[in-house]
């Protein structure tokens, strides 16, 4: 994992899955680099680009075994938060702790390669997620079953329909063992029956004590699967509570 894992300051708490303390993250606005930019900085130095704060002072914790929903409009910082929790990007300020193994599914087909077959892609993704070859082989059957694409496992992914790729992507994430699963808006592209199948699978994982962090614009779906949640609004937490309260507040917000 591209992450720091020294134990300085970490508490040996097993009742928590994820904790964020005063986390903030910004991005530079505009083009990263251009000839014009290079020339102008040569002439007059130290011109700071405008920064956009995707997250400002975000503090929350997710307990082990929670089914935690995050709602919020586009640009509220949901995806940035998932990148930080998954250890992909690094925050500007604050501290993030993750207990146990976390599997993120931040985009359908993330990590898949179009030229590789379904099977090869599952092996690659499993390895990226830190699983051993044996652990991947042990789950291959379950993944194939879940995705329901037996005939296509040895076909290159580029021949898949987008729905099939999404099924394989989702099946891979939920079938591999982890303590916490993070899903960022990944059920939007699959059909209703597969969505129900996924919701059932997540509920089962959760009943086994696994923590699930689930992000979606689909309020109905969030309400039906999650038990607790929070509402992110322009980079900060507007509300944290039971999913019913959060969803009601989010749905009823003044425009």
């Amino acid at each position, binding site marked *: 994992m591209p992450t720091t894992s020294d134990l300085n300051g970490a*508490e040996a708490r097993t009742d928590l899955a994820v904790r964020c303390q005063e986390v903030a993250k910004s991005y530079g606005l505009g083009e990263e680099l251009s000839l014009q930019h290079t020339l102008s900085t040569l002439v007059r130095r130290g011109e700071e680009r405008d920064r956009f704060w995707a997250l400002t002072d975000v503090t929350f914790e997710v307990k082990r075994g929670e089914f935690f929903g995050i709602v919020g409009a586009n640009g509220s910082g949901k995806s940035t938060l998932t990148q930080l929790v998954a250890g992909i990007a690094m925050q500007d300020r604050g501290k993030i702790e*993750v207990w146990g193994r976390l599997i993120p599914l931040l985009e359908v087909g993330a990590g898949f390669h179009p030229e590789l077959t379904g099977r090869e892609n599952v092996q690659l993704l499993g390895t990226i997620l830190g699983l051993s070859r044996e652990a991947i082989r042990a789950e291959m059957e379950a993944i194939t079953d879940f995705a329901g694409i037996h005939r296509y496992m040895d076909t290159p992914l580029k021949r898949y329909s987008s729905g099939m790729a999404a099924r394989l992507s989702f099946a891979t994430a939920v079938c591999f063992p982890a303590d916490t699963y993070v899903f960022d808006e990944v059920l939007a592209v699959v059909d209703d029956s597969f969505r129900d199948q996924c919701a059932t699978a997540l509920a089962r994982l959760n009943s086994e004590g696994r923590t699930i962090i689930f992000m979606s614009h689909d309020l109905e779906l969030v309400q039906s699967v999650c038990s607790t949640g929070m509402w992110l609004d322009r980079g900060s937490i507007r509300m*944290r509570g039971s999913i019913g309260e959060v969803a009601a507040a989010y749905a009823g917000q003044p425009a």
Partner: protein
Amino acid sequence: MNPSSTSTQAASAADLGGATIGLVDTSVRVAVPKRRRIRFADLWSSRHVGFMLGMRDIKAKYKQSALGPLWLVLQPLGMLAAVSVAFSKVTSVNTGSVPYITFALVGLAVWTYVQMAITVAPQVLQANYQVVRRSPCPRLAFVTGTLVSVLPPLGVVFTASVVAAAISGTLSVQALVMPVLVAWLLLMTFGFTLLVTAIGGRFRDAVAMAPLVVQAGIFLTPVGYPLSAAGNFAKVLAFNPASGIIESWRWSLLGSTPDMFAVIVAIVETIVMVLLGWYVFGRMETRFADYV
């Protein structure tokens, strides 16, 4: 504390008895803003991912290709022919008692590897855009993956040059040093791949520069000629780190006298590139997901 986070919390499944299940992984990952977060140990822990990424690129390269892996032989064969015509026939380079083909093959083995890594490394992060931004892929795996993905052509040309050296009767006890010299090539390539991968992710200039380096490199690297043939200019060409490595490979396989200046320069440059590459990669890695 953010006041909103202290609002009511509903009973979680953990409170209802789910916590009896043990953790799959008992480690705690703590992330705080840091200048760098990769460690040497990550090289080892990410080795499987690096291997898989390398194999993925090897497989992908020859899919939907009529000749497929045959290109592993055809490509260096074509280069060998071109180098032979240019340096042996046109400029009549003198390689002493060593047959020209054998001589050129040794240089080509080193150059094939270096040149492919230069081409691949600057675009690795861009090519893996989704993996970089959306998966927790260990970042060092992109570097080790590049080194793995360009190994097959090295293997082919290296084997060919050892066979050619054996046929030419130049193999002696010095050839036993070859494993060390191969490791040196890998280490040097690792150093600049670290550097170029990180820089290429941020500055696409590195992508634009790669073909120039490769095209000029075939002339400015002693692939088709011995460094000694460059006369006074040999001192300048010695600063190309591939020069010292090729000189040492020819000493080992062909029994030629190496240009010791070039060898020492290349050793120093290898150390500098590995240290600098490690430093730059580590510093830039924390923002890969932001600007790739």
